[in-house]
């Protein structure tokens, strides 16, 4: 069955408190060399054929992502 992956991230100008908290913790854990962390959501969907990508984009835009503050990328895997 085709799989669709949608990654949702906060728009770059929007504060990402989670990413900042992780970044802040890294030095304490002894990890250096990481300059920025952003955290988003990752969705994996299993869809029936035929895959209607346009429709899936609508779904991602209205349900998976909150377009006021987030943006998404969508990939269809075979």
């Amino acid at each position, binding site marked *: 069955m085709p799989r669709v992956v949608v990654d949702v991230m906060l728009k770059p100008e*929007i504060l990402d*408190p989670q990413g900042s*908290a992780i970044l802040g913790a890294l030095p304490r854990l002894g990890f250096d060399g990481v300059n920025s962390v952003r955290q988003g959501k990752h969705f994996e969907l299993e869809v029936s054929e035929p895959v209607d990508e346009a429709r899936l984009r609508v779904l991602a835009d209205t349900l998976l992502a*909150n377009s006021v*503050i987030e943006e998404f990328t969508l990939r269809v895997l075979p």
Partner: protein
Amino acid sequence: MIDTVERARDTPDHPQPYSELGLKSEEYHRIRDILGRRPTSSELAMYSVMWSEHCSYKSSKVHLRQFGDLPRSEVLLVGIGENAGVVDIGDGYAVTFKIESHNHPSYVEPYQGAATGVGGIVRDILTMGARPIAVMDPLRFGPADAPDTQRVLPGVVAGIGGYGNCLGLPNIGGEVVFDDSYLGNPLVNALCVGVMRHEDIRLAKASGPGNQVILFGARTGGDGIGGVSVLASETFAADGPAKRPSVQVGDPFTEKVLIECCLEIFAADLVVGIQDLGGAGLSCATTELSSAGSGGMHVVLDRVPLRDETLAPEEILMSESQERMCAVVTPSDVDRFMQICARWEVTATVIGEVNESGRLTIDWHGERIVDVPPRTVAHGGPVYERPLARPLDLDDLTAGDPGRLPRPSTSEDLQVLLLRMAASPNLCDKTWVTEQYDRYVQGNTVLAQPEDAGVLRIDEQTGLGVAVATDGNGRFTRLEPYAGAQLALAEAYRNVATTGARPLAVTNCLNFGSPEDPAVMWQFAEAVRGLADGCRVLGLPVTGGNVSFYNQTGDTAINPTPIIGVLGVMTDVARRTPMAFGTAPDEVLLVLGETRDEFGGSEWAWSEHHHLGGRPPAVDLGRERALAEILVTAAEQGLLSAAHDLSDGGLAQALVECCLRGDVGAEVRLTGDPFVNLFSESAGRVLVALPAQRRARFTELCEAHAVPVAELGTVRPEHATLTVAGQFGVPLGELRAAFTGTLPALFGSPGR
């Protein structure tokens, strides 16, 4: 190119986008007159945002003055004009409380809008030097079954919970009201209470030349730029939130750490003045601080820690990034200040210095971009006497007497009505909402929702505590704004007294449509006058508040909705009166006050007939005072086992709530028209329960205060039924199913 002061002098004719920033042409010319030149773009940004309705109160100021003119109250330690008013509750403790609105942002992005609303009001309370100890959330939504309410309500509730829970602030009360008029304009008001010792009160002023100005908390980003002027001052275009302005995202963790950091800084006595950054961000903080202090300040804007390095100076000045504070610190204390910030991992930066120049000057990349008299920005905004006109439809509305609506005629009809009313969205159980809020944290919550008022213990040794309630009724206010505001005041006052607390002070949030509409402005003026007159009769000061205008969709304004918060004090919270029946043996029920045939604006008329008309119930504030005196004395003497104020839905609803809360039945006997007895919303009434042996003492107390008291019936712990003698008996199980089923059915059952 940077628009510097020098360049502004050289290019007087350079066209500026003042109207896009919300300034009228007269206002723009006033700025030019003040400065003797055109403003730089940074100055224009500051003036425009500070002179917006939201920050300058330009339409409301002339009316709000009435609050300042109330007789000086001896409990008022800090009055209107500061971030929040402060009242003396005795034993050296002071309490501060205030309501703010975050209506438009919550419509655009419900979760973040509501969350940052909580964040903002908490910072106002913190700024006074207080530890925030509780929040409340009066909310208004469109019809419960409207699709947009499905979007807005869950998000708002999750946002309030998400932010407040994470800060460790118990949520002790609020309101959830549904009405068509809020469909495109939900109201999200948030109240915060804080406590401090008298000597810990802090004010927003930058005094002492040479003192350092420190910005601390979150880094400044591009969020909410223009939010103040766009979100708060302009009506949405008819096509809804299409032109979405950028939204602020809250970080409650940063705020929690900021709170603890500030309290440690206050305890070490390291600030001369302090101001939170809310609407209008740095523009507001720098101008307000300097105009309240020595009069001058110099700021090096390059020092502001940024989240986004591409921000222009105008944007930095207008950014509404959350979780930031600005403090004025003497040079010798700066190191200790910085150490405390470091311990909490809070970013802190000296961005400027206080001086006596009488000017606020700001540099960017070595060039002067702002040079203004700060008072003109913070307090010199325009003041409007907007035209007022009684709404044209008001006569028709008041003529629409609900007396003509069909009433139930049989006992069976009455019983069905009671169940249907208990299940109606406005009267039903709100657990679906309130269980998303932490009410236990801090371990001092003595009463919380659904009790009449939230009660908090302040001192573990003595039991000293406070009670807070908020109320508002848009339908009453629509029918008669003067009375509507007083009814809201009376109800909040009564709610506080019902728990046994002595009412002490008032805060308010005035939610209205566009002030440019004379009908709305008339409603506003009437409501403010009603509230001020009401406070005078009750002997209470108004300690502060907030005005939210432009709550309208197209030409249609919301029902005018003043939300009134009343704070009371209780010398020993162990003596509070809760609402549940069944906590004492042999309880009898009495109703205090008079029940009249009053259905104008009632819940019955609205939920059964979708009717809004007639006049709201009569207000008698003298009676409310007497009632409060009885309730407070009775609590002190331990006479009552339960008390519940009668309001929306009348006696029927109060009985349902008290029986279900205690999980016991009751039997009541009505004299006169049972429908009027059960569903009238006459003001000034309270239902009480007390052991029979104390009845005589209690009725004497009522007689002494000339308040009528009527025998109603008895609590029947052995019968799980609410019985109206001669009419009907409803098993509690059936009542509970009706009362609790509505919101889960509408918003999703949260499982077992």
